[in-house]
């Protein structure tokens, strides 16, 4: 199915709003949407909601023979899938450019940064190692998939527990979770991706663009960083020219955001650990709110009001006379009045015809037929009405 095209007026409005530093949902330029991290009953299953964007990540492991070039290291395998339920633009079984970009960026962010200790995944050198497989599924696309995917991946990896193994000579015994407690992976640091969208030739930037903002952007800068302020990867796409101080500024903003998000992830992991230890109920069934068919759950949509009060009171204090929002009607003939001037004829008629019509509307006598429209087929006859025609401010 095709995605809804973006109309010109939406594009213009979004760019105008960005110039005035306003976003559709009332956020500031550097604000993230609400991030919600919830874990499932299995170890290694995590859902991240970034506003309306939802991403599910599942981590699993398997014993396999290692790669020939690296016999003492475990294997990490990443897979990101754009599910067709996320957006009508995603088709199943088709490698679109977006999915290739996201996959590549996820691999670069997590594998090349060496955030997981792969040496600890080795069981028998040269014969058996653990292969950790990270599957990320996009459930709903409302912009900024990369950030949500990276948060989901690293949370799921931190949440995951692999089975315990003992080695006796050449025999490997893998214990099930009931026999021995599974062991967490050893994670050195948590790299998190932060996306910056640039508009109007790089003069305006927004953090965490939503889907409509993404459609009008000029370029995108993705910085993957951890909380120790180490940059794991930088990618700039869209072909815009960025200045050095812009990139430095973005990295400073990214470090602030990353430390906030890392704290959030740690808190969520801690909560989940506590609940499991106390024996309480955990998993998605508990963390998703109950939904009934007769009601719809909706998050509180904040309506941005703070600005309005200040600007309104400023205007009221500085101006002296009140401006008339609607011009008063002008009586043209008996029973008719004209409000405003009307818009310019956009049909592209010859200019001569336009000029001929103008003097006609000026001199009218009350009893004669009034020519209001240019059409030759119509003759408008005014009935004897006493009321003035008033136009309300609601027009179609």
């Amino acid at each position, binding site marked *: *199915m*095709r995605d*809804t*095209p*973006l*109309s*010109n*007026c*939406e*594009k*213009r*409005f979004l760019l*105008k*709003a960005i110039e*005035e530093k*306003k976003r*559709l*949902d*009332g956020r500031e330029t550097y604000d993230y949407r609400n991030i919600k991290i919830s874990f499932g009953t299995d170890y290694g299953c995590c859902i991240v909601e970034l506003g309306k964007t939802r991403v599910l990540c599942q981590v699993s492991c398997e014993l396999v023979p290692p790669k020939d070039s690296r016999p003492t290291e475990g294997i990490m395998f990443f897979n990101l899938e754009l599910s067709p339920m996320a957006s009508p633009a995603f088709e199943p079984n088709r490698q679109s450019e977006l999915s290739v970009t996201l996959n590549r960026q996820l691999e670069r962010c997590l594998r090349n940064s060496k955030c997981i200790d792969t040496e600890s995944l080795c069981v028998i050198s040269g014969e058996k190692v653990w292969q950790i497989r990270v599957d990320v599924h996009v459930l709903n696309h409302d912009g900024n998939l990369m950030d949500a995917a990276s948060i989901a991946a690293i949370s799921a990896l931190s949440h995951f527990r692999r089975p315990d193994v003992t080695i006796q000579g050449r025999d490997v015994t893998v214990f099930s979770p009931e026999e021995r407690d599974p062991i967490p992976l050893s994670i050195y640091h948590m790299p998190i991706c932060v996306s910056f969208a640039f508009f109007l030739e790089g003069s305006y930037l927004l953090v965490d663009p939503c889907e409509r903002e993404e459609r009008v952007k000029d370029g995108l800068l993705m910085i993957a960083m951890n909380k120790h302020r180490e940059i794991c990867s930088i990618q700039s796409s869209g072909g815009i020219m960025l200045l050095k101080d812009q990139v430095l500024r973005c990295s400073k903003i990214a470090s602030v955001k990353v430390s906030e998000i890392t704290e959030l992830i740690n808190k969520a992991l801690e909560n989940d650990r506590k609940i499991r230890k106390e024996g309480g109920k955990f998993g998605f069934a508990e963390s998703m709110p109950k939904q009934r*068919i*007769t*009601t*719809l759950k*909706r998050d509180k*949509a904040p*309506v*941005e*009001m703070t*600005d*309005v*009060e200040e*600007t*309104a009171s400023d205007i009221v204090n500085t101006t002296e006379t009140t401006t008339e*929002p*609607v011009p008063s009607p002008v009586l043209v003939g008996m029973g008719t009045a004209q409000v405003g001037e009307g*818009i310019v004829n*956009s*049909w*592209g*008629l010859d200019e001569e015809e336009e000029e001929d019509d103008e003097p006609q509307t000026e001199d009218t006598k009350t009893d004669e037929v009034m020519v209001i429209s240019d*059409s030759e087929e119509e003759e408008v006859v005014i009935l004897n009405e006493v009321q003035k025609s008033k136009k309300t*401010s*609601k*027009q*179609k």
Partner: protein
Amino acid sequence: MDTIHACFKEKIGEVLLPGDVFSFSFPESGDGTIKTEKIICGPGLRRNGEEVKVCKSGILRHKQPNMYWIDSQQRRYVPAKGESVIGIVTTKAGDVFKVDVGGSEQASLSYLAFEGATKRNRPNVQVGDLVYGQFTIANKDMEPELVCIDSCGRANGMGVFGADGLLFKVSLGLVRRLLAPQSEIVKDLEKIFPFELVVGMNGRVWVKAKTVQQTLIVTNLLETCENMTSQQRQTLFKKVAAGFF
């Protein structure tokens, strides 16, 4: 004989699921006369011989004297003849524009279906513009057709939109509430500040106010008042109006 009405009456206001059936047993009347009752089945109800089947999930509603329908929340639009919708022009092909209306197919809109358009005098419509038009043909077997002109040849408010303003999508239930003759939501909104509003039956709404900030406020208010009772809505609007002045 109120058997039919009685059957429906006990379920009014209840949630029904597709597959629920209303079957009517007509008792044999002694003198052989059968009184005919007329029941109008609205959207979501379908007649199947002697029974009425529910085909959408939702709440059963009733309007006097004999109209019944299922009130369902849905956002996916299905084109229907006679409905006025907001469409986005996607391509110009020969004599015809292709317009996206949110349905499964793109609708076609002829160049000549605008007021005052002739073969020489083409309307000023670009790709990506918004148009407000009515369906003349909309069934499941054919591609839907739009026109921006009514049966007399007048525009009657339809046609291309001007520049500016913001387009957003809401559920079909909210759109029907906005288009109701004495819509409370619109009346309450009017009191806050003046703005222009176009409501398409495909769930698309176009708003234009004097400043960007006001447009955003109206957009957010309309999106949130979908799930509010009228009390909550009025308190919210009062808060907004107070904060604005």
